[in-house]
């Protein structure tokens, strides 16, 4: 992974001094609430329902065991003993004291971490595939490019106070695992006919109140122009994006209003001024960053021997077999596998992890996966470089840590925002909904029979739980002070992206598990052999689902 040098460390040191001063001036009454707000937000500090929430940046989701131990330490000493993995691959702490945040930043900086631009109207953490560098369907490792974007966007002086938040994601594989079409900028890495790296640049995707799929405005951008082209997009957005209404301030609204082709022309015009300036990437600069992401420690293993061994363990341990099928993915290197530690056991808020688990996960990373970890946008944690010969031992340790629920990609692997239990913006709770559904559908064999289903839950229109792109989406709404839930169907986050359609009038919290059951029954009754939930939905449309839920309920 990327290693800080003296420049990165110096910047963090100066940042902590700056933020300590800002906090002090706020506590002394020199800075008003209104003035401190964007300052603390740019540092990932929200004031929530019960306490502040601090979001720590994990650039493109990749971090080390040493960083995980530090996060565990912070959870223990400054929080209530747990942390939360967010859908943008970051960590969140729910109970820090505002006064303690400068000290927390000091601790984080010791392991090269921070909370810079994890919130506020600025460029946020650049995200990508949780399997980057090891996926079998990858064109090229996107992380060096993400790192170059991280550096460019960190404390960018021109884009510190944009009309609204700004999120960039990279996709570099056949299957999209970064939801790049739902980002302000989605960068798709491709190789041209000569095998050279190029980027397709999509803009104006997003969820929230107005879900929109990103539009391609620049196909085949030469890699050396990545930074100047991004800068041109941001410069146009910074000047033309709406600032009069925060619900219409995202770039997606601007692109839609101008029409993508006109927006593209405006960016092109701006870009002609800055194209080929010194921000143009050089081979040396890119190679220097690429070196950080080359995994050289692979041993040469006999893949078929490994597989034979695993096949025999399967017979002895049925549960191991299920875990192997569901939570382990193929790796580009023979004899290796990608393992996902499941943070969605029933009864635990999706994405939550305790300090004890965090320390243990750090140990697992050291023991089995080169000391590195990744957070996923589905709120799980990945060990990316596990030898197949270690899988059985790793599984046993995961079982003991309650990290082995074999449900990756199934109904109970729910994406869920913190919701009304924590978040000051939420209209309704989301965690109890996830739990009620997990309890109702706890029979794994039934879930496996249903096949992969993305169930996404958001507590409000801000859509942090990505409900628009869930095959089944649930949105918390407020109706005259009472919490209700709207259900949508047919969303999809990948390359064949679609936005879910609202089923109809909303339901009470109590009704939701039964409604989900009716939807699943409808699917089971209508599906063709081997047809997934979303494919059945796309074939038959929303009507039969609607009928089953409302007519029979009425």
């Amino acid at each position, binding site marked *: 992974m990327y290693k800080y040098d003296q420049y990165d460390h110096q910047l963090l040191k100066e940042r902590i001094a700056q933020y300590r001063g800002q906090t002090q001036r706020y506590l002394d009454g020199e800075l008003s609430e209104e003035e401190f707000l964007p300052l603390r937000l740019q540092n990932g500090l929200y004031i929530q329902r019960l306490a502040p929430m601090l979001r720590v940046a994990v650039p493109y989701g990749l971090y080390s065991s040493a960083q995980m131990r530090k996060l565990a330490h912070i959870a223990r000493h400054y929080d209530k003993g747990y942390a939360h993995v967010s859908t943008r691959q970051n960590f969140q702490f729910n109970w820090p004291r505002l006064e303690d945040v400068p000290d927390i930043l000091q601790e984080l900086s010791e392991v090269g971490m921070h909370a810079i631009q994890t919130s506020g109207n600025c460029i946020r953490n650049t995200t990508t595939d949780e399997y980057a560098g090891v996926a079998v369907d990858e064109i090229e490792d996107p992380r060096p490019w993400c790192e170059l974007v991280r550096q460019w966007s960190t404390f960018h002086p021109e884009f510190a*106070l944009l009309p609204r938040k700004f999120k960039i994601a990279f996709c570099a594989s056949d299957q999209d695992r970064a939801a790049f079409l739902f980002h302000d900028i989605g960068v798709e890495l491709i190789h041209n006919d000569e095998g050279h790296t190029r980027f397709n640049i999509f803009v104006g995707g997003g969820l929230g109140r107005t879900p929109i799929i990103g539009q391609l405005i620049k196909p085949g951008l030469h890699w050396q122009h990545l930074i100047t082209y991004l800068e041109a997009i941001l410069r146009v957005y910074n000047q033309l994006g709406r600032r009069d209404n925060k619900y219409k301030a995202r770039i997606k609204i601007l692109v839609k209003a101008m029409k993508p082709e006109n927006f593209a022309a405006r960016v092109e015009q701006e870009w002609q001024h800055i194209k080929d300036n010194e921000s143009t990437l050089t081979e040396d600069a890119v190679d220097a960053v690429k070196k950080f992401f080359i995994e050289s420690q692979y041993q040469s293993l006999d893949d078929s021997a490994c597989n034979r061994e695993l096949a025999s363990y399967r017979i002895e341990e049925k549960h191991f077999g299920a875990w192997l099928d569901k939570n382990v993915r193929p790796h580009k290197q023979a004899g290796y596998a990608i393992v996902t530690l499941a943070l969605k056991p029933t009864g635990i808020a999706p994405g939550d992890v305790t300090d004890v688990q965090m320390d243990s996960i750090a140990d697992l990373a050291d023991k089995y996966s080169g000391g590195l970890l990744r957070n996923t946008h589905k709120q799980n944690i990945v060990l990316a470089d596990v030898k197949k010969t270690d899988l059985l031992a790793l599984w046993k340790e995961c079982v003991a840590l309650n990290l082995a629920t074999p449900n990756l990609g199934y109904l109970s692997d729910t994406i869920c925002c913190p919701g009304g239990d924590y978040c000051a913006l939420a209209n309704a709770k989301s965690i109890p909904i996830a739990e009620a559904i997990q309890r109702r559908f706890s029979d794994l064999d039934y879930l496996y029979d249903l096949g992969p289903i993305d169930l996404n839950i958001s507590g409000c229109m801000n859509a942090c739980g990505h409900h628009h792109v869930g095959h089944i989406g649930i949105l918390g709404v407020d109706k005259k002070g009472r919490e209700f839930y709207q259900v949508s169907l047919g969303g999809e986050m990948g390359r064949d992206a679609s936005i879910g359609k609202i089923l109809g009038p909303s339901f009470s919290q109590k009704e939701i598990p039964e409604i989900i059951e009716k939807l699943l029954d409808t699917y089971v009754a209508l599906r063709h052999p081997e047809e997934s939930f979303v494919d059945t939905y796309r074939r038959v449309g929303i009507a039969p689902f609607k009928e089953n839920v409302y007519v029979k309920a009425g």
Partner: protein
Amino acid sequence: MSKLVKDQQLVNDQWQLVEKDSTIDLDSIADSDFLLLPLGKWLSSADDFSQKKNIGVWLDSDEAPEPLAGFCKSIPLIAINFPVFSDGRGYSYARTLREHYHYEGELRAIGDILRDQMHFYQRCGFSSFAIRDDRDSSSAIEGLNDFSVSYQAAYDTPTPLFRRR
């Protein structure tokens, strides 16, 4: 505009800002008056005003600098207003003036100018800062030096760190 910061220090300011709704008679400006005109008024006699050493122009946050493109060689002072510090359009206007139109005169940040944005203003090409009246200007000057390292290129450092590492 009593608290003007320039070259890292507090200086006296001879310029007087003319509001958009002022009824000033533009035909009778004395040579001894140093006036900062709103863009609309300035544009009414752009060819004439742009040649005067005592007439500057200020842009509001919704006024992009394009109309000034042809005059940037001779204008002595351009100011950009930040009605609230969180309206960041002026940063892009500043870079456009400096880097596209090659404006080399004084570029002033006016309005809700606070310590915590000083570093950003400076990097985007502002050379003077009218600190908000109720704020301490020495603290604002410190804000200019919050950071000694930057990753990306901007007006103050056209070479990004990746070419200097």
